[in-house]
Every structure is written in C-alpha cells, then in structure tokens.
C-alpha cells in the first residue's frame, strides 16, 4: 500500500482557489498504484503532470518511483495550484517543479518523445463553451472542471500532442467520464496517432462514471 500524500498543510482557504482532491483524483491514484511495478520497471526519468491542482497526484507518483529517480514536472494555469503543488511536494519530500503554463506548451520543443509518464486529470465536465472559455481565461477554480462541449475542449487539444511528447516506452494516463466518449477517444488515438489505449480502471462515483485510460505506443509488429 502506498500512502495517500499528506495534504495536511493545505487549508480550506486553499481549496477555495484550488481543486480539492476528489473521486477523480483518487481513481487516478488507484490506477497508478495498480501499475506501480510496471511503472518502476520502465525506469522513468521524466514525468509530466498537466493540471496538477493540489499536487496530490505527482506527489503520489513520486512516492511510487522514488523522489530522486525521476524529474517531476507539472503545469497548471492557476497560480494558486502551482503554489500548492510546490508545497505538497515539499511536504511529501518529492521535489516537484511546477510551472505556470497551459498544457505542455513550453516543453513541446525540448521534450519531443521524451516524456516517460504523462498524466492529465482534465476539466472534463461538459459545459457551455463560453463557460469553458471564461474558466480558461480566469484560470480559477472553474478551470478545474469546465470542459466545454462534451467536456473535451482541453482534452482534445492535448490528445493531438500526446504522440509527440511520449517517449518510446512512455505511458499516458487520462481521467475521463462517460460523456467524453471513451471508445471514440481510444479509436482516435489509435487511428490518428498509433497509440494503443485501454481502460485501466473505471467506477461509478455519485453521478459520474469515471474512467482512467492508459495509452502507450503500439508494439511494432514482429
């Protein structure tokens, strides 16, 4: 059992600005824990989490892999989230480097096919597109969930970039809900990008049917 990261340094005032870990966070932790041995065997050197929020997920990944075994990078558009991610790293003795950035933008040139573990628990809730646009602009707590049409506005952008970011043995974990069209996502990643996707974990939590999808490069035919 890998302990859930210590978040006792974060107060309710922090969670007015930053997404508080919830069922979608925990299903991602559970999927990573199930894959812990596989992930260690890959000897990841570069891990990147997009939309780190409280920093809970990367801190957890750091305790799976070991704090000095990999570089732990995170991005978030919410400055409070970057601060929380930083302190959560310190609290859990994982040196996390948060950057205030959208998706993987500043890394796209230099991390070409170099990310060993890529994580994204995106704003996946279907909303009006205006709502998603304004949440992105204000970079506040609404940006944690407002996902626009089909809840896919942001995820769609990242999906087009995953192939160029993943290292040859890289893994990409994505949190999604049923309304995001799980089959459609997997099919598209395979046909357009040669990335094989599968459901790592799924469960119902209240009104949400949550999924963790795991992608890797297709094994070359032998």
């Amino acid at each position: 059992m890998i302990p859930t990261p210590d978040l006792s340094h974060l107060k309710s005032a922090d969670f007015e600005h930053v997404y508080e870990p919830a069922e979608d966070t925990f299903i991602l932790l559970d999927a990573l824990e199930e894959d812990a041995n596989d992930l260690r065997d890959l000897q990841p050197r570069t891990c990147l989490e997009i939309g780190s929020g409280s920093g809970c997920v990367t801190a957890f990944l750091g305790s799976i892999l070991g704090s000095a075994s990999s570089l732990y990078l995170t991005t978030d558009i919410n400055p409070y989230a970057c601060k929380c991610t930083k302190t959560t790293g310190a609290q859990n003795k994982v040196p996390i480097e948060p950057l205030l950035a959208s998706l993987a933008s500043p890394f796209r040139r230099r991390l070409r096919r170099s990310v060993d573990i890529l994580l994204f628990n995106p704003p996946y809730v279907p909303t009006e597109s205006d709502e998603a646009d304004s949440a992105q602009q204000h970079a506040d707590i609404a940006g944690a969930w407002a996902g626009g049409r089909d809840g896919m506005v942001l995820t769609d952008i990242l999906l087009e970039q995953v192939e160029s970011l993943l290292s040859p043995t890289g893994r990409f974990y994505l949190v999604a809900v049923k309304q995001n069209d799980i089959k459609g996502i997997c099919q598209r990643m395979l046909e357009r990008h040669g990335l094989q996707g599968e459901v790592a974990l799924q469960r119902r939590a209240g009104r949400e049917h949550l999924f963790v999808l795991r992608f890797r490069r297709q094994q070359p035919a032998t």
Partner: protein
Amino acid sequence: MLLEACSLCYSVLYSSILAVLAGMVRLITHNLLACHAKGCTSNNFPLQFQDAAIELRDAEFNADFLRGFLPRIEWPALVGAARQLGDASLPAEQPEMLDDEFLQKLHHVLLEIHVEEGAMVCPNCKHVYPISNGIPNMLLAEHEIG
C-alpha cells in the same frame, strides 16, 4: 480589523513558508524550456536568465538517474546557463567517461542550483518569462499563443 490583521499574518506566514519550502527553477528544467510565443520557432532556446537570485540546496544523489537523463540534456545550453549563474564547473565538451567526479558536478549543476526570482528571456523574440517564488510564469497572452 481583527480579520484584517489575521489575514495579514496569514499571508506573511504563508509567504515565509513558501520561501523555505518552495522555489526551484533548476537548471535541469531550464534546459527543457523553450519560448513558445506565436511565430517564435527558431533560436528560441535556451532562454537567458535575467536578474537571477539563486539559492543552493542539497538534493539526493542518484547516479542512475543522471546517466539516464543525460541524453536528454542539450549540453552547450547547460554549460552556458550554469556559467550565467556563476558556476563554471562543467567542461565545455560533454565527457565520454561518466566517472563519479563528473557525475557529482553534473548533479550539483542540474539539481542543486535553484533560481528563486528573476526572469528568463527568449533570445529570439525577447519575450520575458518572470520567475517568482521559484515558479516560472510561462503563460502567454491570448494574442501571443501560436
């Protein structure tokens, strides 16, 4: 009044905690960042440090990590950035022999030099990416996004 005083204490306390715990654009990360402003596609790496305030902090040494990460480093950019921050311990050419002495130096330069404040400037379009409390602001305004 009381409330105001409290929130003031809180923010002072909070920022001092952050100053102790937080802060780190390390050179390993700097080596992976390029300017991504609209239309800025060549000579956009490495970003140049400006008014950098640095702190040195011990990090756990892991030779396997260093050996595994080295192929992802752009060597001249790393040497240049380290010199900009006053560290000239790395050789201009990346050595072929990764002996312990070299790995120790590499460890220090990549992982123990933290830039807390200052900025990173694009050598091409001169876009300024500020660093505050060790967190770099790589966001672009909407009209700057490519």
